[in-house]
């Protein structure tokens, strides 16, 4: 089957635009050097994601998506960044993060990952009512970029943000999958996992004072 890119209605295009913005912010996360900036970018990514969910909820009237949007705004864009900032303050480490590899190789790796995701998604014949191939490719890319960040960041807060942005990839896939069962439950559960990890970060910070948690 020849690769086919659908140019849909304006509503679809806005959804794509928001999805693309989430992916772009994943790239922006990759080369951040300060914890505080990283947290801000993450909060921005979560807000765009919430906007995407709200927009899709408006287009295909679905209460579930409104709930997801609410959960994303309140939990991921506000509560978790606040907790992260507090943990970072306790650690007194707003100084530069040295990722294991430099910014340029990191971005090159990131582009490679997105290419891989697009290639993996290309043969898929997506059901008519499901997400388009592009939306799926965006979600897979966001998940894999988060995993990359988790793998190469040395700083504990950087790793947590990598983990959190992976979760955003899941939400991105889930909001464009119509009729996914248990969506709100799964989103709540994944938010719970995220909060446990963020709490663990602040406990760690408390346990070893101003020192660095080794990991």
């Amino acid at each position, binding site marked *: 089957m020849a690769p086919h890119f659908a140019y849909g209605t304006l509503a679809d295009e806005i959804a794509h635009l928001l999805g693309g913005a989430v992916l772009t912010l994943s790239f922006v996360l990759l080369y951040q050097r300060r914890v505080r900036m990283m947290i801000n970018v993450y909060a921005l990514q979560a807000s765009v994601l919430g906007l995407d969910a709200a927009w899709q909820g408006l287009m295909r009237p679905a209460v579930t998506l409104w709930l997801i949007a609410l959960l994303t705004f309140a939990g991921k864009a506000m509560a978790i960044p606040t907790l992260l900032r507090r943990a970072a303050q306790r650690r007194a480490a707003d100084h530069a993060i040295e990722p294991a590899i430099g910014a340029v190789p990191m971005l090159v790796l990131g582009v490679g990952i997105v290419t891989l995701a697009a290639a993996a998604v290309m043969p*898929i014949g997506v059901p008519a009512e499901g997400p388009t191939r592009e939306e799926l490719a965006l979600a897979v890319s966001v998940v894999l970029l988060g995993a990359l960040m988790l793998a190469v960041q040395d700083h504990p807060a950087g790793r947590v943000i990598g983990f959190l942005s992976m979760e955003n990839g899941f939400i991105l896939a889930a909001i464009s999958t119509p009729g996914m069962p248990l969506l709100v439950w799964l989103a709540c559960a994944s938010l719970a996992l995220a909060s446990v990890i963020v709490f*663990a970060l602040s406990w760690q910070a408390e346990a070893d004072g101003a020192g660095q948690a080794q990991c």
Partner: protein
Amino acid sequence: MLRELTCAHLVIAVPFAAATVLLLTGPARTARWISALAFVLTFLLALGALGDVGEAPGLLFVHPLAAHLTVLTAFVAMTTSWASLANGRSTFDWAPLDQRGGAGYALQQCQLGALLLALLADNAGVTWIAMEIATIAGVLVLGLARIASWKVLLIAGLGLVLALFGTALLSLAAVTALGPGFASLSWSHLLPAAGHYSGPLLDLAFAFLLIGYGTTAALVPLHTWLLDAEAEAPDAVAIVLGGSILNVALMIILRLRSLVAASGAAAEPNSAIMTLGLLSLMMAGVSLWRRRDLRHFLAVSTIGQSGVAAFAFGVGGPVATFGGVLHMTLHALTRASLWQCAMPAMARKGGGSNFIDLTGLLGSDRRLGIALAAALFSLAALPPFGLFSSAFLIVVETVRRAPLLTLPLGVGLVLVAFALLAPLQAFSVRAARGDSERRVELAALIPVWLQLAVVLVLGLAMPGPVVAWFKAIASSNG
């Protein structure tokens, strides 16, 4: 509504109810007894749930393998709670757990309940939520202030998110055949309709789910969390429950294998599973020789045995699946025995887990030393213990189905077997220092020998009904 309640529902409800009671219990001593009683009740109900096999009562799906693992998980949790009851108080090293006597035990009940829910749930989404609860409860038992729990959370959390993403893709792959809604993630609907899914989408979902749940099954490359979890676990119950998570994840992997294999459109799943299993076994075979810390040593061996079971599931077919399920079962029993001995053995020298801390164990506490040595023999898959027959079965089936892989499998198994005997040297050295610690209670060793006896009987002469039961499990998945 109440009429529809089955043992399968109750077996999940009891641990959660016990957790609620335990949260309100003040003194640690009372909490230990309540917890042990709840484990017994759960085990009895798990036996009762065997009567529901093949049914799908409200939101649950009692698959033969799930029912089998329910009994197994409840059994080892129960015996281990007896052993630690006889061994004395377990301490939770994290202030919020230590201040409230029952909190740590409540978390363990919660973990057991979540594991049983993951086994019996009909919906893949519920399965994921249950696995997540089990992981979080397991990490909280370690205490959040530790570096180890942090590492466990990151790696296991990474696996969980990958599995979650895979679950969303699975729902998307099935949505054309089963329609949107609950059915598109329901195991009992997914398996029969396997022929109608979108192939490439199922491949992508399988890739994410395999890596995700493979992490929970402690398969290479994301296996390191198990080392940290076992190095810091406060008591044997925590470790045994942590090991049961591996079995649940292996069951999910087997289920996914059947699903993908049954769908004609997707790529064959077997080689990926075999590769992960074999890599885990080889890693254990190489790494065990360098370990001098009993906790790490046993954790690495668990990774290896999990790899053997995964490999067997990857080989495919009823015989290999029979071997894999048998291996999982016998390993769970052996592992429980081993930790039930290892915990008091390490406590003798104030918790030191290096082999040096265990020298002269056979001389200073003969009962405990012999039990530990027997459990190590069993773990090394040496005859007459049962793990030998399951490993043998797997090797024979590999010769038949994938002859080229027999060599690495054999090398891995032999490397692991000999490495596992190494600590015996340390134990049998005559005690040079004056060891006058208190000896372990005889009662604490009863569960150890009970489990080893089961492993022995299943290795030497498996009774007819048991063979029929394992065959039924294997043919329902193979």
